[in-house]
C-alpha cells in the first residue's frame, strides 16, 4: 500500500515540485498551505508516514507547529522533515528539540530528498 506524505508549504510551486517528485516515487501526497492547515491535516490523517514542513509560513510557522504537536507526533512516531531557505543552527536546534528528524535547505536536490524520505518511511 502506498505511503502517505503531507507537504506543508505556503508556496504552491514548492508543493507542486515536491508532489511531483514524491508521486513519481510512488507516494500518495497531501498538501497544506500553512502551519494551521497542516496541523489540522496531521490530526485528521491518522495514517501519515511522513510530514515535510516549511519553516516560515503565515498563520503558524513550521517550528510552532512542531512545538504544539510534539506529544502527538512523538506518540504516533510520525517523522517530520523541515524544508526551508535558512540554515541557521539555532532554528535547526529548536526543530531537533521538538522532534524533527531532518532539515533540508532549499533548493532541494531531488535524489537526496527521496533518499531521506525512503529512509524515514521504512518503518512506517
Amino acid at each position, binding site marked *: 500500500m502506498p505511503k502517505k506524505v503531507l507537504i506543508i508549504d*505556503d508556496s504552491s*510551486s514548492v508543493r507542486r515540485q515536491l508532489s511531483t517528485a514524491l508521486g513519481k516515487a510512488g507516494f500518495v501526497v497531501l498538501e497544506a498551505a500553512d502551519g494551521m492547515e497542516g496541523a489540522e491535516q496531521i490530526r485528521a490523517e491518522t495514517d501519515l508516514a511522513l510530514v515535510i514542513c516549511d519553516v*516560515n509560513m503565515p498563520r503558524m510557522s513550521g517550528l510552532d507547529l512542531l512545538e504544539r504537536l510534539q506529544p502527538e507526533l512523538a506518540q504516533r512516531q510520525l517523522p517530520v522533515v523541515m524544508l*526551508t*531557505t535558512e*540554515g541557521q543552527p539555532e532554528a535547526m536546534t529548536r526543530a531537533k528539540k521538538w522532534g524533527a528528524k531532518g*532539515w533540508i*535547505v532549499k*533548493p532541494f536536490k531531488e535524489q537526496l530528498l527521496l533518499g531521506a524520505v525512503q529512509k*524515514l518511511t521504512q518503518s512506517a
Partner: protein
Amino acid sequence: MSSPTASANALRGENFAILDELLRDCCIELMGDYGLPAQQADVGPETATGVAVAAVDFSGRDVRGTIGLRMTSSVVLQTYRAALGRAIELDSPEAKDWSCELANQLIGRLKNKLRSYEVSFNVNAPRWLQIFPVAELERALRRRFICDGGNFSGYLDVLIAPGFVFVPRASDAPLAQEGDLVLF
C-alpha cells in the same frame, strides 16, 4: 583627523560595500542553482513592463529593509522549468508564486551569509509586486545581471542600525548550506 560625520560616512560605505557584494553573490548563486548562469551587467534604467517583481521585507536588531528580484519573463519561465520540469504562462498565479519563491530563496541566502557577521533577522512572507517600485530602487543597492535570453536585477533597500559595523566573525556552529540535507 577625520570628523565624526566623515567617519560615520566611511563606516556606512564599508557596510554597504559588504552588503552589495553579498547581494551579488546571492543573485548569481540563486540563478546558478536553477541552471541559469549569469553575468553582471551595467546598472541602467529598468523597464517596468514585461517583468516579474517580487520582494520580501525583513527586520532585525541591526538591519531591516526589503530585498527584491526583478526578472524578465524568460528568467521566471526558465527557472520554473528547471525546478519543475514543465512550462507555465507568465501571467499565471503559479508564475507569481514562483517569483515570490525565488525572492524567498534570495533572502534565505542573504540571511545564511550574514550569519558570519552575526546578523540575523525575521523574514516576512514574500509579495508579488504589480507595480515596479522605481522609487525604492533609486535608494537601494542594485545588481543587474544578464543571462541566457533575459536579465534580472536584485535590489536591497536596507537600514542599518547606527554604529553597527559588519565584521566577519568565526562561527562555531555548523551551518547547513543551500541544497544540504541534515538528518537528526
